[in-house]
């Protein structure tokens, strides 16, 4: 299995193309089996991953365009490993819980294609390969929203596509400039990230390059004020689309910050801590308030995603292992929890064909199992200890506290505002009397739905109680990256900042 990464990337798409000849009735089963195999492969990767090592593992390298240094170059380290596992898991669970009736074969093929692009993004170590998968991931998503979405689907999908596409074009310019700089220094072209890491730029260049990459990543995350495509996309997308979008696609942006911006531009990153922290805090508080004002249950979850991504962004720029490891853990946690929440909204939407909360009320009496699963995910979302949501949030906040206590307190209001909108959703939908007569006939979760939620609930609790197997590999890679950044930083301010944020005990 020395080509495990290539198998992980290309197996779904090959199987997806073969999926066209599968009979229509068995397309769903076919898709689930492929996704299951892919998930098992990713588990195999995890089992064989050396968690004591911080370096890239299972590296594959062969040239595509030799003269321009474009290579097929993939590898995995602690940072990307779990994002890959989460991607395959959420694809599997999403596919299992899928309730789409029309064009099911197309959906299965699209999802498998999407899975390839997502895994590819997380495994790529060559900028061109990264960019290739990054852009390619837009196409299946565009199709999913545009073909299976709600009434405004065309507007939403085009907005999603053009918005993110514009951002990534600016990022591409940045990439080309970095490659050109590499060429002008060394005389050879290279797009390999490991080569790029070695480049030292002037602060001025770093700043502009950081901005170029920032635009691409920030729109994907999405950071305030680039977030408005998200509510539309979520509002119109079918359940499966929202699940994948929230669970995985958004993480590509934050992953990009960790993979590109921090190690390539350490000084600019340190310089940008304050602005990014302020944007993150706006994201946390402002979108939480907007979420509270929503009437549509799905929109609440959509805006809450933005709020949680604010926490993740904050942690990445904490410049210490607590913050960054916490961020990456929070990416996993948010992936699983928000994915599950979108699936839960899908469950009630399938039954009532509405997502407006005023039509619900008293659902806990009619659908106790549904209320229980929703309750667990809600608690994970508000960051209750011993659920997956707490670990990441706690680490991020404790990490960023070292950078700025005041900003951390502001960001920490997320535990308050988060509780406000989530509990009000729960109260409006599940508590009180059953006001809507039609809702009295609703059926509780069926076996299929239950089996797609049980693994998620199990993970939410398992990683809440024992996050260590996941945290250790991440921590190793992050610490290696941080010490690399410390060595690389050219300005003394950045160097001091990175050193200062590490030390636990400061001398008086």
């Amino acid at each position, binding site marked *: 299995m020395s080509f495990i990464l290539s198998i992980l990337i290309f197996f779904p798409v090959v199987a997806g193309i073969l999926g066209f000849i599968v009979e229509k009735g068995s397309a769903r089963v076919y898709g689930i089996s492929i996704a299951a195999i892919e998930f098992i492969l990713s588990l195999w990767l995890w089992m064989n991953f050396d968690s004591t090592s911080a370096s890239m593992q299972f590296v594959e390298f062969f040239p595509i365009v030799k003269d321009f240094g474009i290579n097929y170059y993939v590898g995995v380290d602690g940072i990307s490993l779990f994002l890959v596992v989460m991607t395959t898991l959420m694809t599997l669970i999403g596919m299992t819980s899928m309730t789409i009736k029309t064009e099911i074969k197309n959906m299965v093929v699209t999802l498998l294609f999407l899975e390839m692009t997502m895994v590819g993004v997380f495994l790529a170590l060559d900028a061109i390969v990264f960019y290739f998968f990054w852009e390619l991931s837009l196409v299946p998503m565009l199709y999913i929203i545009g073909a299976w979405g709600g009434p405004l689907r065309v507007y939403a999908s085009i*907005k999603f596509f053009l*918005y993110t596409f514009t951002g990534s074009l600016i990022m591409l310019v940045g990439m080309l400039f970095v490659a050109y700089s590499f060429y002008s220094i060394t005389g050879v072209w290279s797009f390999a990230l490991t080569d790029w890491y070695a480049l030292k730029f002037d602060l001025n260049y770093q700043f502009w390059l950081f901005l170029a990459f920032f635009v691409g990543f920030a729109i994907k995350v999405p950071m*305030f*004020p680039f*977030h*408005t*495509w998200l509510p539309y996309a979520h509002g119109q997308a079918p359940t499966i689309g929202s699940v994948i979008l929230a669970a995985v696609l958004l993480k590509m942006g934050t992953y990009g910050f960790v993979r590109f911006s921090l190690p390539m531009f350490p000084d600019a990153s340190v310089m940008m801590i304050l602005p990014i922290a302020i944007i993150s805090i706006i994201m946390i508080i*402002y979108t939480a*308030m*907007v979420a509270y*004002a*929503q009437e549509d249950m799905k929109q609440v979850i959509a805006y809450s995603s933005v709020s949680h991504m604010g926490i993740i962004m904050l942690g990445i720029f904490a410049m*210490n*292992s*607590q913050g960054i*490891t*916490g961020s990456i853990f929070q990416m996993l946690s948010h992936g699983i929890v928000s994915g599950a929440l979108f699936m839960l909204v899908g469950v009630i939407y399938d039954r009532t064909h509405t997502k407006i909360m005023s039509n619900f009320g*008293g659902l*806990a009496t009619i659908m*106790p*199992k549904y209320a*229980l699963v929703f309750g667990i995910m809600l*608690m994970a979302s*508000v960051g*209750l*200890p*011993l659920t997956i949501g*707490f670990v990441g949030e*706690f*680490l991020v*906040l*404790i990490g960023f*506290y*070292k950078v700025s*206590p005041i900003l*951390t307190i502001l960001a*920490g209001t997320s*535990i*308050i505002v988060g*509780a*406000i909108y989530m*509990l*009000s959703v729960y*109260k409006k939908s*599940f*508590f*009180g*009397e059953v006001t809507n007569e039609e809702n009295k006939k609703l059926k509780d979760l069926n076996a299929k739905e239950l089996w797609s939620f049980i693994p998620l609930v199990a993970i939410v609790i398992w990683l809440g109680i*024992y*996050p*260590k197997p996941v*945290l*250790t590999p991440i*921590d190793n890679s992050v*610490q290696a990256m941080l010490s690399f950044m410390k060595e690389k930083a050219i300005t003394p301010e950045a160097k001091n900042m990175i050193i200062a944020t*590490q030390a*636990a*005990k*400061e001398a*008086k």
Partner: protein
Amino acid sequence: MENLVYIALFAPLVSSLFAGLFAMSPRKTFVGVVSSLLLFISFISSAVLGYHIATTGANVHVTMMDWISVADLHIPFGFIADHVSVTMMVVVSLVSTIVHIYSIGYMDHDKSFNRFFSYLSAFVFSMLVLVMSDNFAGLFIGWEGVGVCSWLLIGFWYHKPDVSREENPSISPSWAANEAFIMNRIADLGMLVGLFIIFWSTGSLQYDVVFSQIPNLAPAVLTAAAMALFIGAMGKSAQFPLHTWLTDAMEGPTPVSALIHAATMVTAGVFLVIRANPIFSVTPEVSYFIAALGTFVAFFAASMALVNRDLKRIIAFSTLSQLGYMFAAAGLGAYWIALFHLAAHAFFKALLFLGAGNVMHAMHGELDIFKMGGLKKQMRWTYAYMGLASLALAGIPPLAGFFSKDAIIETAFNEGTLILWAMLVITAGMTAFYSFRQVFLTFLGDERYKEFGIHPHEMYGFVLIAMSPLAILAVIAGFFRDWFNSFIIHLLPNYEMSENTHHLALILGAIVLVVAVSGIILAYKKYAKGLKRSEKTENGLIYKLLINQYYIPKIYEALITKPYAEISKLMWTKVDMRIVDATVDGIAKFIYKSGDGSRKMQTGNLSNYLNWMAGGALALLFIAVASSVIG
């Protein structure tokens, strides 16, 4: 001994999961029985541990496994049974066991009987995690855990709809539950910040490491940490201004009020101050603030209890007031007295609440004491229990409250904080008055309930027997004061009265006693014969102020809840849709419009195109020439 720690801790969890298995099936009595048994096992283990620690003086410390470990942040699941935590364990598990047994009778007719036991046991587990943890993070786990269980239990009757504040001051159980959770979360942020300060200045969250580092820390850091931790304590212990949730929490079933909102969870804040006493004892300003706030809350809450008509809310205000006493003691440095009052209070307040539960059960859910009266005939035992508990609460010797509360008042005198002392003495009188106002209005006088067609009946026998340990403890707990002192000072700093105070102790005690007894006599005169309402008092300014809780809930609604909702709405409809999104769409529209505009160039007339072409070629030529001239 280590196994006992695990048994004490995990028996409630097993109980919760066991009951949870039946959560969606119809009521089964054995679920309650098994739960109570498991809780009893937990109590026995705690008691054995307590005996072990008392006799050998050795702590039992176990580390189960690592929880979070990143860079130099290491948080294990570690549990310690030492003098403080074992006291809490015994109190918590004892009261919990009794409340569990009580609930078998009380929740008899509730169709969510099994679910109730699952939640209740989960609460006990969280509470034990809170008190037994050997580090601040573990404490925080329990801290949030009890918060969630409290949310679940306050909102236990979630199906009740929202009503107006005039009809029910707590609006609805689910509303009260959310209020409690969110208010606690505000305080929890303070607590988290405290954890962060501690971690970054000592490099650990383990109690022993942190406390050993204290001498090396700057005073400013310690003050900040103490303040942040106390903000956390203020939320959980419902201190002003985060107190409104506690009375609204009375929407939960009465056993919940007894266990969570009287005996255990609300004392977590006091426990935190006691646990972190090395930090608080070196930050005198914060400690003094705690004492002053505690005294204020004691007075403030007692004043609201004076006029309230709701049986459970009166007891809730009284809890608030007693928590104030505990904070006053802890703030003045008498940590062991605070802990002693905490334990004694847990016994008699739980008894009082359970008694109120009996009354409520008998009155078919009616809580207005103006609609009761003369229940003594039907409910002799409950009357005895509640009378006893009220005597203890009022601080009448030789009951538990006398010993613990008197010590606190004496401490205030000893510290020379005479204003605090005076306020605490007055509060003691108020306490006696409102407790007996409630007892007399409920049990003596004319039988007003007959107008409403209610036929009260006494509680089941086994329930009354189950309550008896609490009654016994409410009577005798005070006698253990000296023994408890010698036991607890292994861990907590001793607090001794000065010579001067010692001489005056008798007089001081007598003053308090006189004030308390006159409170009872006043209540007897006014209410024992029957209810005489006076229009004049009830329309008076002070009465209005008190009955409306100083209008604080309304102020919060007007200043916080409503504006928050409105600003949120504004943020969404105006800022997000009209500004942020409109800008994005505006850019898209601009591009679209400019394309639409330039489309007109495409006239279809070749001649026009050729003109454009010629013009373009000339322009390029011009630019080329110009740039070569300039460049």
